[in-house]
């Protein structure tokens, strides 16, 4: 069984779509979750392929051939050397800022007034489906392979595809996923991209909240924090289960860190809402939509939640997330040495 350690949410490097075929895509995959999938009019794959050969016997033909070569060269250069302008402000890890003068002196001329002379050409990047950090059957017998296959391969995938479809025409193109969730929630009047972006984020989070041979007790700092905020570990489990069973219809149940109150809390949410929209930091997320448990447990939700807490939840990823959260929230009193 392959198990890779859980990833920090914003910095995931793995989980990248492996369908890469061009130089452009290779250059851009260093940024998280982004894969170049298409360009505006000329697909990048086509740029590097030979066009239909023009007849170079005539003078015209030769001129056309010459223009084509130049354009191709220019376009390849633009692909590799383009700064972070892609029409909507996507941050590319490869881009660097240099002064205008230096740029003008350099050999890579890039005309800012007409960035892409001639035909319009734009690199666009969309989200891809991240893979869970374990094999699909690794969570048996608590979550069957078929459930994971459909849940990830069909539901999660469908959300990613719908999100990408929205992003083609949306003003939120270029936002990171977390930003998009917060922005499209729009303080309770969610915009059309909210459902899909929040679902994608939540499902990524969900797969990483689990691990094969998970469950049992957390250790060290996490356990201390839970004891501090819930009393006992059993109390936390009871609260979590109660919250999960109190949801009517589809929803999620979260263990999250409240930024303002600087403590952990459990909350259920409806449909695709997550604690991100409240500005808090989620630590564990459990999908209580029926598609997550119906094939395995039918309507026995308490068995599903108990199995999740006892056998599936990844306290390792909880620890990693708490570590990251401590960069945003001061959880403890500072130990000021007494003189």
């Amino acid at each position: 069984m392959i198990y890779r350690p859980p990833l920090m949410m914003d910095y995931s490097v793995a989980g990248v779509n492996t369908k890469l075929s061009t130089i452009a895509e290779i250059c851009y995959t260093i940024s998280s979750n982004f894969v170049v999938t298409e360009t505006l009019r000329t697909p990048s794959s086509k740029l590097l392929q030979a066009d239909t050969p023009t007849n170079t016997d005539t003078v015209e033909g030769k001129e056309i051939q010459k223009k084509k070569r130049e354009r191709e060269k220019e376009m390849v250069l633009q692909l590799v050397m383009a700064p972070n302008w892609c029409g909507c402000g996507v941050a590319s890890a490869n881009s660097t800022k240099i002064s205008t003068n230096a740029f003008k002196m350099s050999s890579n001329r890039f005309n800012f007034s007409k960035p892409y002379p001639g035909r319009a050409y734009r690199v666009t990047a969309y989200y891809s489906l991240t893979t869970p950090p374990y094999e699909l059957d690794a969570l048996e017998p608590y979550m069957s392979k078929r459930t994971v296959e459909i849940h990830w391969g069909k539901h999660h995938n469908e959300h990613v595809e719908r999100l990408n479809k929205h992003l083609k025409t949306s003003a939120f193109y270029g936002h990171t996923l977390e930003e998009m969730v917060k922005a499209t929630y729009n303080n309770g009047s969610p915009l059309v991209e909210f459902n899909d972006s929040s679902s994608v984020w939540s499902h990524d989070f969900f797969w990483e909240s689990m691990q094969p041979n998970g469950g049992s007790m957390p250790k060290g700092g996490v356990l201390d924090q839970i004891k501090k905020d819930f009393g006992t570990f059993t109390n936390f489990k009871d609260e979590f289960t109660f919250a999960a069973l109190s949801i009517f219809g589809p929803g999620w149940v979260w263990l999250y860190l409240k930024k303002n109150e600087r403590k952990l809390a459990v909350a259920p949410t409806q449909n695709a809402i997550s604690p991100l929209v409240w500005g808090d930091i989620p630590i564990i997320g459990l999908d209580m939509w029926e598609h997550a448990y119906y094939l395995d447990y039918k309507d026995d939700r308490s068995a599903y939640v108990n199995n999740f807490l006892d056998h599936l939840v990844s306290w390792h990823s909880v620890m990693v997330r708490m570590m990251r959260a401590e960069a945003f929230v001061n959880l403890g009193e500072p130990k000021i040495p007494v003189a």
Partner: protein
Amino acid sequence: MQPATACASSGLTIPWLRRCSSLRVKCSTSQRAHCASTSTADTAEPIEPIEPIDPIETDPEPDPEPFKLKPLPYPFNALEPHMSKETVEYHWERHHRGHVDSLNAIIQGTEFAEMELENMVLTSYNEGNPLPFFVHASQVWNHDFFWETMKPGGGGNPSGVLKYLIERDFGSLDELAKEIQNAALTQFGSGWVWLAYKAHRLGVGNDINPRPSKKDKRLVVVKTPNAVSPLVWDYYPLLAIDVWEHAYYMDYENRRGDYVSVFLDKLISWDVVSYRLKNAMFRASKREKMEKREMLLDKMKEATLRVKVRPTPKARPKMKRRQY
């Protein structure tokens, strides 16, 4: 499980009898034959004799089960292969029954216990601020409606007024199917998809239609989230498709579109939908007449108020009689 309604003479359960009744039922020969052919594995219990109610008795104890789970109009495996026996069984036995039990637990002893189900749904919806038992009441109503919308060997084409209205308001049956599919696929999360008869009303005192036309009362496809139904919007539902995942997950996994198209092709009972439509049209026109009558009465009342009536005639000086 409450005792199934049983036939007095044959002792078989009666799937066709909608409401549980404490009356003795004597089946005719044809009905007995029907029961014999479609009897399920339900236990046949003999009817208990009715006890005479003492009229001077004090208030009887509140019924611990004001609402009872309505039996299905067909056996569990009747909808195979389009809806498996397992799905129907779980759906009815666990989800539907769960709602009935929760509803009974909440309303027992309160004033809501004597309400009819439809009335309870509307009251508990409370204009958008639902009371805690709204979801249970509404789901019980919705599920009853849903089971009756289907029948074994369903599908086919609508006829009569329903067909006319579908063609007038949607174009064709295929267009209607497309709209229903669209509604089902765009319903995020759980919910229901409905075909409803909408009488063009706002329900406020001054909603006078300046250009009334026959098309005002029309068929519409609506989708509702979780437990809501178009009753709360004053529509008349005709057809319901449950798009909660528990309704189709075991048979179709995530393919909600396939489930809905199979529902429309193979499961739906257009007879029931037609009957409901006729009912709805009758109720809608009756209501309209009542409202017109009320409006006229109000106008008359207003007019009579404007008329000043002197309680006594005006005092005039008496005319002198001429002395001849």
